[in-house]
């Protein structure tokens, strides 16, 4: 890459404001649309079709080397690359925020290799690639959410043999799944698994919902948007079609519950969103803020104010910067 090209790229990519769809990023030369070659995208699309046809079933696919390390979203990025078109608007979130390293870089990756519009607003996006969260704003039928998955096999911690876990899925032999929940209750009196909480999809396959908090599990049930899951290292992808039943596993006398907080968001006062704890100093001061930065900003723009310290006007309006 020449110095001139680098300079051009820096120029085209740099302008970025918070929120709002943006065009004007030009595709860099020398790459196929959305980085992957057409044959690979075709292969992945075939796997996606199979995954959609069998909700919750893990479809093997030929995962490619991507220009980022395993564990950073190689699966999600390949799925996004296969479904994205020139007219799409992409949003990428990491732990609910649009402005973390992973989110910024994946968004910029597609802006450069596909020339698509990107956004931080959930409602404007047609494709949302996510790690660790589902946006608080309900998704619509016109959207696709792509999850980055580290460990696609929900039975892995209980059964190490891949041949055996596949057989267990094939025979719907899921009794052992409850053993891990039993352990939690036996030791702590309640189910303590707080993320990657196993779900039953369409009354058939037990599925790992990727490391989203169990707070987000109910959002997957009957979601109008198509949900796609990609695990690059493990070379598996799976899907939940729109309006599909997704039930979190539990016991009759210990039903599934979501996390609750006594606090509300310090910035926007929301009581219905997933809150992150932010340590302010070493004297025990802390604040709770929405993990979904877009949701928080929208609420503040609509005039909601929380009880905590507010960000100054000249600062970027996102919870991560509030401290």
């Amino acid at each position, binding site marked *: 890459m020449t110095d001139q090209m680098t300079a051009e790229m820096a120029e085209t990519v740099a302008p970025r404001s918070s929120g709002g769809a943006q065009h004007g990023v030009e595709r860099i030369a020398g790459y196929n649309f959305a980085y992957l070659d057409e044959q690979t995208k075709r292969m992945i699309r075939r796997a996606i079709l199979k995954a959609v046809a069998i909700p919750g079933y893990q479809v093997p696919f030929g995962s490619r080397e991507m220009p980022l390390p395993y564990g950073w979203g190689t699966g999600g990025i390949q799925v996004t690359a296969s479904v994205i078109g020139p007219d799409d608007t992409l949003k990428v979130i990491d732990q609910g925020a649009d402005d973390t390293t992973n989110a910024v870089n994946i968004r910029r990756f597609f802006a450069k290799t596909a020339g698509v519009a990107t956004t931080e607003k959930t409602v404007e996006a047609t494709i949302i690639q996510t790690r660790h969260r589902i946006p608080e704003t309900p998704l619509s039928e016109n959207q696709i959410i792509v999850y980055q998955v580290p460990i696609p096999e929900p039975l892995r911690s209980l059964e190490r043999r891949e041949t055996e876990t596949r057989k267990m899925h094939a025979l719907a032999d899921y009794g*052992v799944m409850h*053993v891990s929940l*039993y*352990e939690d209750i*036996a030791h702590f009196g309640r189910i303590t698994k707080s993320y990657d909480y196993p779900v039953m999809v369409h009354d058939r396959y037990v599925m790992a919902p990727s490391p989203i908090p169990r707070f987000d599990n109910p959002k997957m049930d009957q979601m109008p948007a198509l949900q796609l899951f990609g695990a690059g290292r493990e070379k598996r992808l799976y899907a939940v079609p729109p309006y599909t039943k997704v039930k979190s596993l539990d*016991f009759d*006398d210990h039903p599934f519950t979501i996390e609750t907080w006594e606090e509300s968001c310090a910035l926007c006062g929301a009581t219905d969103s997933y809150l992150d704890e932010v340590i302010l100093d070493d004297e025990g001061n802390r604040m709770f803020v929405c993990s979904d930065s877009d949701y928080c900003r929208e609420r503040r723009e609509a005039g909601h104010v929380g009880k905590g310290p507010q960000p100054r006007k000249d600062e970027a309006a996102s919870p991560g910067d509030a401290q």
Partner: protein
Amino acid sequence: MSETKGPLLRVEELTHHYGIHLGCRDVDFELYPGEVLGIVGESGSGKTTLLKTISGQLRPSEGHVAFNTRTEGLRDVWAMSEPERRMLMRTDWGIVYQSPREGLRMNVSAGANVGERLMAIGQRHYGNIRSETVDWLERVEMDLGRINDMPETFSGGMQQRLQIARNLITKPRLVFMDEPTSGLDVSVQARLLDLIRGLVSRLGIACIVVTHDLGVVRLLSNRLMVMQNGSVVEQGLTDRVLDDPQNPYTQLLVSSILPV
């Protein structure tokens, strides 16, 4: 439990080859409800292979294994679909392995190990599973204070008792035991044998016990099969075989018991 008439298990001309090597050959027998059958023989005589082929772990090269199911009478185990066979293995059957590591989940607590079968057959009420687990741990004389401990922290004898509780919780009608007492010291062996004998006679469970220890079979089993080089060389009532062995190999085996 509705008792069906006739044998609980019928084994016909059962043969298993490992490639060109012989595992066991032409084994025939019937087992009736509540009966305890001992299988003895030296190492490598095909005892464990025979047990595995009968208990659904190893597909036989030839021959049939038929089990008297609760609903449909005698059915060929290997002609069943895999889900049916798995269901049978975790409800009406129990398997106690020689090494507790094979039979237990070492990374979950004792209570979860015992309750696993209940969860596997669809019980979803924690309180009920817990109380049945406690009940069974009591029956195998385990310290209830250790219900949440990992099996790793248990002694060999306790691990074996845990395996037994884990298998018996679904009230099986047939239990397979592969050398259940080897590797334990003699006093623990005696207690475990006493426990097994008590449970088996009280619950009327049929049992197939594989062992190389003639003392174990004299204590536990009604009937005895002696194996050598993959074939059954002699079978009959335990006392008859041990007191009046007919086959030269059985005579050798019986005479090799060390006098105490």
